[in-house]
């Protein structure tokens, strides 16, 4: 497995935990992995990008434009912002959620209405998931990230058992049960 995954979202959406689980999945598969995060200022509701690289040997923790096999977007506008990273023939997984950035909330800029039309200009396969719907049904909005991972694990044909072990290794014990439910629901949404 040779994978560059870009996780794009809004500060506070749980992208860091998602990247950590992917890293632990790589390890359980016996592969090298690097994850690059941004903390601090960017976490206050700004755009947040995390890079995950899985290969037999990884050097740079970052990769450049047109180098991502997968863009995992936690929000539609952020999917658009990060689409330049996708490789030809790559996969863009988008959570069908809109979070208005301040310029749009104020009416100073317009939240684009044609995001999927713009995304379709990239030579990439686009998958949409309703992770917010899953998390809302589970009554825990914080499980959006794990629902996204469940969906991605199915789309990317990850080993389900190993992936569940990676989640077990990464999340706090009291949240394990609900997170595994979110994973399963995401997985089913992709396979269903």
């Amino acid at each position, binding site marked *: 497995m040779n994978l560059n995954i870009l996780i794009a979202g*809004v*500060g*506070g959406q749980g992208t860091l935990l998602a*990247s*950590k689980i992917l*890293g*632990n999945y790589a*390890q*359980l598969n*016996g*592969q*090298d*992995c*690097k*994850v*690059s*995060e*941004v*903390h*601090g*200022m*960017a*976490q*206050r*509701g*700004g*755009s947040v990008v995390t890079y995950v690289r899985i290969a037999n040997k*990884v*050097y*740079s*923790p*970052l*990769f*450049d*434009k*047109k180098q991502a096999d997968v863009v995992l977007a936690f929000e539609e*506008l*952020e999917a*658009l*912002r990060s*689409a*330049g990273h996708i490789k030809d023939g790559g996969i863009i997984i988008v959570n069908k959620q809109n979070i*208005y*950035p*301040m*310029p*749009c*909330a*104020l*009416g*100073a*800029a*317009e*939240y*684009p209405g044609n995001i999927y039309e*713009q995304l379709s*200009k*990239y030579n990439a396969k686009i998958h949409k998931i309703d992770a917010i719907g899953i998390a809302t049904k589970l009554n825990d*909005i914080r499980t959006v990230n794990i629902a996204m991972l469940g969906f991605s694990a199915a789309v990317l044909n990850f080993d389900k058992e190993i992936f569940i072990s990676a989640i077990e290794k990464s999340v706090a014990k009291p949240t394990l049960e609900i997170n595994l439910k979110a994973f399963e629901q995401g997985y089913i949404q992709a396979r269903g």
Partner: protein
Amino acid sequence: MLQMKKLMLGDHAVAQGAYEAGVKVAAAYPGTPSTEITEYIANFNEVNAEWSVNEKVSMEVGVGAAMAGKRALVAMKHVGLNVAADPLFTFSYTGLNAGLVAVVADDPGMHSSQNEQDSRYYAQSAHVPMLEPADSQEAKDFTMLAYELSEKYDTPVFVRLTTRIAHARSFVEIGERKEVEYPYKQDISKYVMVPANARKRHPAVEERERRLSNDINGDLFGESINKVEYGKAGSNKIGIVCSGAVYQYVKEALPDFAIFKLGMVYPIAFENIREFASKYEKLIVVEELEPFIENALKAKGIECHGKNLTGLQGELSVQKISEAILGHKALPEEHTENIPMRPPVMCAGCTHRGVFYILNKLKLNVVGDIGCYSLGCSPPLNAMHSLICMGASISNAHGMFMAKGKEFSKTNVAVIGDSTFIHSGITSLIDAVYNKSNITVIIMDNRTTGMTGHQNHPGTGLTIKNEPTHTLDLEAICRACGVQNLSVIDPYNLAEVENAIKERIKADGVSVIIAKRPCILLDKSMRHDAVSISDCKKCGICLKIGCPALSRRKDNSVEVDAALCTGCMVCAQTCKSGNIKKENNK
């Protein structure tokens, strides 16, 4: 085996290394991207860790521990080293008993910083050796090695990180802790830096630096610090010199090239590099920030290229290096257009919001400081007009008073957070009162160190290990500094905020307003009690508070995101028709 390893942040790996090296004392003030080092090491029972009030204090705590005979760790961001520089420069003269490692995290690209300064010059200027790891495993190994070097050469040692090392995760092998302790020995000529003694120590500093320079150029360390990788035979005529995260980019951009990887960026192994350079037609130094290595090589008569190819600003990347050295063209334009920016914002329910709304409304000049409230500068609040460094707001405002007098001061307000006030605002406040200033200071007291991720400080009454301790009384501190005009207000109450500010800016002398309420992210009582808007008049005044839970619909009416709204009611106080109410009328 890979399975035995742990996926760790560079910051955590440094802490793990320090722990295994037997560190007994760890001290720091939080600062991105270095904060997680001290947070991590505080988890170990064997380590006495603390949040110090500022970096100078943390360095002095570390120095004390090292003089006493236990290994110490001090960690800071690049600008924190400016604050800690005073003790460090002289501690370089005295040397130590047990090892001291100072970790400094630079932030090329300024992900969360106010400048792009290069800490390597501190190593040169203070004559303190500096190691620079290139991944988490090296972050751990180099930290452990730094303690050996510190004691062998009788010097504090720097470990330098950059954001992409500090905040990148890679695999690390975990080992056992080894306790280290030396007896405390009094030595007046070594530790009392009066001029007569300092004059004798200065040659000792130069002597140890010569010794280390010789050793780093010799065989003593093998490949444990610096490393040469010869490229494929005949594949190119260029040799590369690099270190840290840049090494990883070089390995991908130029996989077949010969590389001299510096693990120690000060002192530099000039003779080894000279020998390496002699094998190639061209030597290129690839480094982020300043031409530190490049200029040092040139001064030694080693010809090289560097910043003429890579530039001085921001981070490097695989693509940038490939462009600079191989001439590979930039990638084609993207297909997407008109993507609205998503700048960081104050959270929904942020306790700072109301104060900035009123400052904007009163059209006051706001002298800012470092913290979450720095976001008060952005639209629609636009209520911060300068920001320099930790603690500067109060002294900057005082300087403005000194320059422009009382009338100007009545339109001017200094804004500073609780943790920043304790870090270095108290001294400024004493200065202002002492020098008969006429300024108004607002302490945004949200009972935590917010921006770096909610660390305790003396005002929270809890230590880094969450043990109860004395709670610093900010009001009493201000009064003890000589502040006569003082109000404590609730920042959620806009009328109270406005009245307090109007009253205090008119008053003579130094006035302080403490806007006190816990950070919304810590105050769990304040969740999920959202407001709703009925019969919106579409005036848009509520949007002027810049709350991410409010947005304009297509028809110009305002909509509330109930999932984000905390029910702080700040927006409700701006609504002229009184139509913003809590859903369940609590």
